[in-house]
C-alpha cells in the first residue's frame, strides 16, 4: 500500500544519506596535508569560549600556512561541534580519529567535555591538547599522568592559590563568602582550592552558597549572603551568571570587593553588570589584552585585523599559543605520527610563545603566569602579573 512504500522509501533514504556522508569521510588520508582535529563547543553553554578558541586557532593556522606550513606540509583543520555536551564530545573525537584520521585533537574548551574524550584518545593513541581546560583532573588522574592528554594553560589549583593570595595579601580580608556554580567542575574545583588555602591562613568562610548555570535571579541567595557581612565575595563561575550576580549584589547593597577566576573573561560581563557595578571587582586570567609586552600587542593587532576589530579574549589568546605549541611538537616529531607528536609535546622546553616562555612539566601541564585584572569604570586594567613558582 501507499504508506508501506512511503515507509520503505524514508528508511532507505535515511540509510543512503548516512551511507553517503560516511563514505565522504572515508577518503584516503591526503599525505600532503597535516590534519588536526578540533573538538570544540561551538554551540551550547560554553560556546563563547569554544568559538573564541577556534578564532585564535584559525589565526595561527593561517599564519603558519602563509610561512609554508610545517615540514613543508600545510595544516588543515577538521572542526566538529560538541554542543557543550559530554556525550557529544565522545562522538566528536571518535569521528575525528576514525573517520578523518587526524594526527592530534585540539580541544575541547571545558574540563567535563575533555574528560569525556580522554578514553577514546588513549584507546587510539592520539594526543589531545586541551587549550583552556583548567581542571587538574584533565592531565592527572588519581596520581597517574594521562599519557595522551596535554593542556596549554595553567591549572585551577594554581589559579585558586593566586586568588587566595590576592584575597589575603592585597585585599587583606578576614572573612569571605563563596558563591559557587554547582553545575561546573571548574567552579567547584577552584572554590575547593581557595577554601583550603584560606583555612590554613585563618580566614573564615562565612557563607558557602551555590547556584546552577542559566539561573537568572540571585537576589534570594545574595540576601542570605549579605546578612553574614562578608568582607569579600568569591564567585569562581562563568561570565553569564557572574554578570548578573555582580549587578544584583550591588543593587542589594553589597559593596565589598567581588572576585572571580578566568571564567569571567567575556564582554558580556561588563555589559550586563554595568560599568558602575563592576568597580571593585577583580579576577584572575591567563593574559590581559592590555599587557604592554610587544609580542602580546602584535597578537592583539593581528587578531583585530583578522576579525573586524574584535578584541581577543583569553580563550583566543591561549588557543593561539596552544596551536603554536602543537605545531612545534609536530615539527620536532618530523612526521604526522600521533605517538611521535605525543612524545614531542611532553618534551617541550622553553618554547618562546606570544604569552611568554612555555615548558611542559612532568604532569603535562605548562608552567605559565597569571594576571589579576581589575575593572575601573567599565574598562579592564591589569593589576598584577604573577609568575609560576
Amino acid at each position: 500500500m501507499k504508506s508501506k512504500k512511503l515507509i520503505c522509501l524514508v528508511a532507505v533514504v535515511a540509510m543512503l544519506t548516512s551511507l553517503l556522508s560516511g563514505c565522504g569521510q572515508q577518503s584516503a588520508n591526503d599525505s600532503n596535508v597535516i590534519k588536526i582535529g578540533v573538538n570544540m563547543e561551538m554551540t551550547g553553554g560554553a560556546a563563547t569560549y569554544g568559538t573564541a578558541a577556534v578564532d585564535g586557532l584559525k589565526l595561527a593556522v593561517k599564519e603558519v600556512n602563509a610561512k609554508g606550513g610545517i615540514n613543508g606540509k600545510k595544516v588543515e583543520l577538521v572542526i566538529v561541534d560538541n554542543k557543550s555536551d559530554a556525550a557529544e564530545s565522545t562522538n566528536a573525537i571518535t569521528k575525528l580519529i576514525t573517520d578523518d584520521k587526524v594526527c592530534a585533537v585540539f580541544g575541547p574548551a571545558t574540563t567535563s567535555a575533555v574528560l569525556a574524550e580522554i578514553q577514546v584518545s588513549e584507546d587510539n593513541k592520539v594526543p589531545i591538547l586541551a587549550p583552556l581546560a583548567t581542571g587538574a583532573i584533565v592531565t592527572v588522574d588519581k596520581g597517574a599522568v594521562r599519557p595522551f592528554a596535554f593542556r596549554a594553560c595553567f591549572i585551577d589549583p594554581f589559579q585558586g592559590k593566586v586568588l587566595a593570595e590576592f584575597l589575603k595579601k592585597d585585599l587583606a580580608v578576614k572573612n569571605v563568602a563563596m558563591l559557587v556554580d554547582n553545575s561546573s567542575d571548574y567552579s567547584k574545583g577552584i572554590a575547593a582550592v581557595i577554601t583550603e588555602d584560606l583555612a590554613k591562613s585563618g580566614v573564615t568562610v562565612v557563607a558557602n552558597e551555590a547556584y546552577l548555570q542559566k539561573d537568572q535571579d540571585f537576589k534570594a541567595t545574595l540576601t542570605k549572603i549579605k546578612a553574614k557581612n562578608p568582607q569579600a565575595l568569591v564567585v569562581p563561575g562563568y561570565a553569564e551568571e557572574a554578570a548578573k550576580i555582580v549587578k544584583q549584589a550591588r543593587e542589594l547593597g553589597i559593596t565589598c570587593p567581588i572576585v572571580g577566576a578566568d571564567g569571567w573573561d567575556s564582554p558580556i560581563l561588563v555589559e550586563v553588570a554595568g560599568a558602575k557595578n563592576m568597580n571593585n571587582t577583580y579576577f584572575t586570567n591567563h593574559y590581559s589584552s592590555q599587557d604592554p609586552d610587544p609580542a602580546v600587542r602584535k597578537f592583539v593587532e593581528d587578531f583585530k585585523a583578522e576579525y573586524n576589530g574584535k578584541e581577543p579574549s583569553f580563550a583566543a589568546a591561549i588557543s593561539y599559543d596552544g596551536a603554536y605549541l602543537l605545531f612545534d611538537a609536530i615539527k620536532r616529531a618530523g612526521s604526522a605520527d600521533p605517538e611521535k607528536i605525543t612524545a614531542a609535546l611532553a618534551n617541550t622546553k622553553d618554547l618562546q610563545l606570544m604569552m611568554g616562555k612555555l615548558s611542559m612539566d612532568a604532569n603535562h601541564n605548562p608552567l605559565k603566569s597569571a594576571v589579576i585584572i581589575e575593572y575601573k569604570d567599565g574598562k579592564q586594567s591589569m593589576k598584577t602579573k604573577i609568575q609560576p613558582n
Partner: protein
Amino acid sequence: MNKMLKRDMFVLGICAVLFALFQLGFTFKIIGSFWQLNIILVCINIILAVSLNLINGYTGQFSLGHAGFMAIGAYVGAICTVKLALPLVVALIAGALFAGFVGLLIGLPTLRLKGDYLAIATLGFGEIIRLTVLNIPYIGGASGLTGIPRLTTFAWVFWLMILTVFIIKNLINSSAGRACIAVRENEIAAEAMGVNTTKYKVMAFTVGAVFAGIAGVLFAHYFYLVHPSSFTFMKSIDILTIVVLGGLGSMAGSIIGAIVLTFVSAVLASYAEWRMIIYAVLLIVVMIFRPQGLLGDKDLTERILNRLKGGKR
C-alpha cells in the same frame, strides 16, 4: 501453539543471522567505529522507544518523563560497576529494578490525572529526578559520574533489544495487553466492563520504566560517563518523536522510527539546531496529516499477512 512457536523460531533465526553479520563486520573492522556507535545507539533507542510506546501508545498514558527512568537505570548501573565493582549483569538487574520501582512510585499517584495534566506531572517527575541527581555529590553531582568501564558490547545491546521487543510484544498480545488497549480507547467504558484500570496503568508505567532503566545501564556503559545533561526533557522528546513518527501503538513503527531518526540525528550532528527544527516540524506535520504515524496502529507482520491473505482483517 505450534504455528506460533515455528514463527518465533524463524524470526529468532533471522535475528541470529543479522547479529552474526553485524558482529563479523565489527570484529573484522569492515564496519567503521562511527557506524558501530550508531548501530549500538539504534538498539538502545529501540529499547527506549518500544518501552515508551507501551505507556503512551498502547495504554494511552501520555508520559513525558521517560528520560528520568533512563537516568535512574544509568546511575544505579554505574554505581554498581564503578563504586561497588560488580559485573554488568548485576548492574543491569539493579538498574532495571530501581527504575521499575520508581515507575511504580510515579504511576500510583498520577493515576487520577488525565491527558495534559498527566503529561506535565510526568515532565515534572522527570525533571525532579534529573535535578535531584544534579545535587548528589556521591554520584558526581553536576559533573557527572566518570570512569565507567565500557562493558556494553554489540552483543549485549542486540540481544537485550530482541528480548525487550519479545517481552513487550507478548505482553501486548496477552489479556493484560488488551486491558491496556481498552484503557487507552475509553477508560470509563473499560472500568465499567470490569477492567481494573488502576492495575494496568501502573503495570504499563512500571514495565516501561524497567526497560528504560535497562537502556540507561547500556547507555552509561558505552559512553564512559553519565551526566545529568544527557537526561533532560529534550531526551524524553527525542524518544517521543521516534514513537510518534513510527506510530503510537505500533512496535514495528517504533523500531523503524528508531533506525531512521538515529541516523538522521547522526548525519545532522554538525547542525544541532536544524536537527531540532526538523524534529519539531516532524511532530507538527505528523500530528496534523498522519497522526497514526508511519505505521499506524497495525503491526507490520499483520499488514504483510493481510496483504498476502487478500485483505481479511
